[in-house]
């Protein structure tokens, strides 16, 4: 790899630059095609729809992906947690709202914990298989609780101010939920990339056996990652519900794939040991800019998914092809030297 890309300094070779360039490219391309409807201000407004709930789920998914595991059940966890909140509050006739929120967070954490326990207890089954079944299980429980009904009637500050409110900031109307998400990122970055606890996650994901022998409690780390993932899924469900105003058991279907896509696009690998918080943020921005633009041009969910899939594959494939090319050149050069 060093021979071809060696001339470029290491920090410039990071995935983040590619993503940042793509964000700008996508933004200006759509801006040129739809100068009136696709502006920075309107895009900022649309982050509610395309960015926040998936963003929270992706933050949790990142932890699990760094460990080399995967969690298919996040969307179902979000649905179940939001269902619990809606049913506990019962449109103002049940528990107080803060208690309902607490219950929701507990439900999310419990779902994550159950996943984690199953994963460390049954190592010969893979997290993918386990969370595949718990996905159906969690949605099933949400279905038992709510049946085909929906639960709503949330307080105004939640369904209106949090869901659709904005704060004037530097002359921009920044959606409140976006602000909350963005505020989390610096802390999340520091925790994951700059503390021992965060680095342990990367260590366990790179080589779990070596980590265990060097004294890491790998099972505990896994459990924590799955638990936090469940918690983040619940928070994602919380913001999703504030936007839709009511809960059904089908809420957020397919979001798990979007969360995985965002994390992988941002530099995580499903084989573990890799992942980046800045990359995740950029991937989130990229998808938001792309989805909003495509929605304006085509107004078609299928076209939107098609381009997301294409982007996901290309962003992973292209660096792979470059490194394969570099490998081949290196081998050729070594052969030439040997021939001399």
């Amino acid at each position: 790899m060093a021979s071809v890309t060696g001339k470029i300094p290491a920090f410039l070779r990071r995935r983040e630059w590619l993503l940042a360039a793509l964000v700008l490219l996508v933004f200006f391309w759509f801006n040129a095609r739809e100068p009136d409807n696709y502006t920075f201000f309107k895009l900022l407004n649309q982050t509610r729809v395309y960015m926040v709930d998936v963003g929270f789920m992706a933050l949790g998914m990142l932890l699990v992906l760094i460990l080399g595991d995967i969690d298919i059940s996040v969307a179902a966890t979000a649905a179940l947690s939001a269902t619990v909140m809606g049913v506990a509050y019962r449109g103002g006739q049940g528990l107080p709202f803060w208690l309902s929120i607490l219950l929701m967070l507990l439900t999310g954490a419990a779902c994550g914990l159950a996943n984690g326990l199953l994963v460390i207890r049954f190592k010969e089954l893979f997290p993918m298989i386990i969370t595949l079944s718990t996905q159906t299980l969690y949605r099933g429980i949400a279905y038992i609780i709510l049946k085909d009904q929906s639960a709503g009637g949330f307080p105004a500050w939640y369904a209106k101010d949090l869901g659709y409110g904005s704060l004037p900031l530097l002359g921009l109307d920044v959606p409140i939920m976006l602000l909350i998400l963005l505020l989390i990122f610096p802390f999340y970055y520091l925790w994951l990339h700059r503390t021992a606890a965060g680095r342990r996650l990367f260590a366990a994901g790179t080589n779990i056996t070596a980590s265990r022998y060097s004294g890491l409690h790998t099972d505990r780390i896994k459990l924590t990652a799955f638990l936090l993932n469940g918690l983040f899924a619940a928070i994602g469900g919380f913001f999703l519900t504030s936007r839709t105003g009511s809960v059904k058991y089908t809420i957020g279907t397919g979001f798990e794939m979007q969360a995985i896509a965002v994390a992988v696009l941002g530099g995580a690998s499903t084989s573990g040991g890799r992942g980046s918080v800045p990359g995740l943020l950029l991937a989130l921005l990229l998808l938001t800019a792309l989805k909003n633009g495509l929605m304006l041009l085509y107004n078609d969910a299928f076209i939107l998914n098609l381009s997301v899939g294409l982007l996901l594959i290309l962003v992973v494939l292209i660096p792979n092809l470059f490194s394969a090319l570099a490998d081949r050149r290196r081998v050729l050069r070594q052969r030439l030297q040997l021939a001399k």
Partner: protein
Amino acid sequence: MSKPPVKVFNPGRLLRNRELGLSLVLLALVGLIGLRNPAFASINNLQFILGDTAIMIVLALGMMCVLLVGSIDISISAVMALSAMTAGIVMKNNLSQAEAQALAEGAVSAAAVKVSTPLPLLLLLAAGVGAGCGLVNGLLISYGRVLPIVATLGSQYIIYGLSHLVSGGQAVYRKDMSEDFIQFTRGSFLGFNSKVWIMLAAFLVLLVFITYTRHGRRLYAVGSNAEAARLSGINVRAVTLSAHVIMGILAGLAGMLYASHDNKITQDMAMGYEMYVIAACVIGGVSVTGGSGKILGVALGALTIGVINNGLTMLRLTGNSEFWKKAIQGAVILVAIITNVYIQRGHERRVLRERRL
């Protein structure tokens, strides 16, 4: 080691056979559900379950090949939708021509001549589309070095998108289908639905391929140790690619079965079906890391899921059985998978004890 083993009939050894264990579990399930609702264990219903599960078995056979080489394919439901939709659109377009022609020739009713492109051609088309999807998946994974989950997650989005583009935003309904396509999964031969016969054919072909051909054995070699396989002269990438193409072809055919069975082709047909197929493989004893799994086990695993699905409807736990089916399916599959782990662990412990380790 000095004494040659004497072959005596040993019932304990027979029980250790994994497939036999699974079939006993399956029989017990049928018996238990049958006790509660005798209609469940009737020959008619069991035949119905077999026909219902045939599509899942066809898919699970392909998924087994992919899992054997240590890969996975979660785009199969999208491949089913795309190939059925492509064939369906061709059928629909040719059908309207046939109707117009017949009317022009003075036929009394147009419905009498619901003919279209011959069924074998349509099947070939669907299998071809499936093979193309499998080829792309395989190329991405083997030559592009993209991790299987990521590659097929991405291609799932893309293929569903293509299926939407092909459909032009419309579904293909029964009125758009030719008579022989509608009857495709409704005919029966020797008391079994034609789906069962197609499944049996696929089963036998893959059984011979995987157990007796050189290429079939290579799937196991690549999955158990790719590096060792490469060093012993196996083209690992080509083998991985071929597994994905096989999966694609079977998914294309299964898509046609599914469409004919449902009498409807929608652009998001079979969404989420891949999860059941993977679960069937895992229950059937295929390792997700590759290299181990038997074809009979896979069929039994799919049948177990079929029995559970049908049984949950037949049990009538409450007034609304569909409700319970939806609600506890996940729990039941989880229990089945975990039971399987315990059986496997017991088996491994016994093997270790026999070797005095």
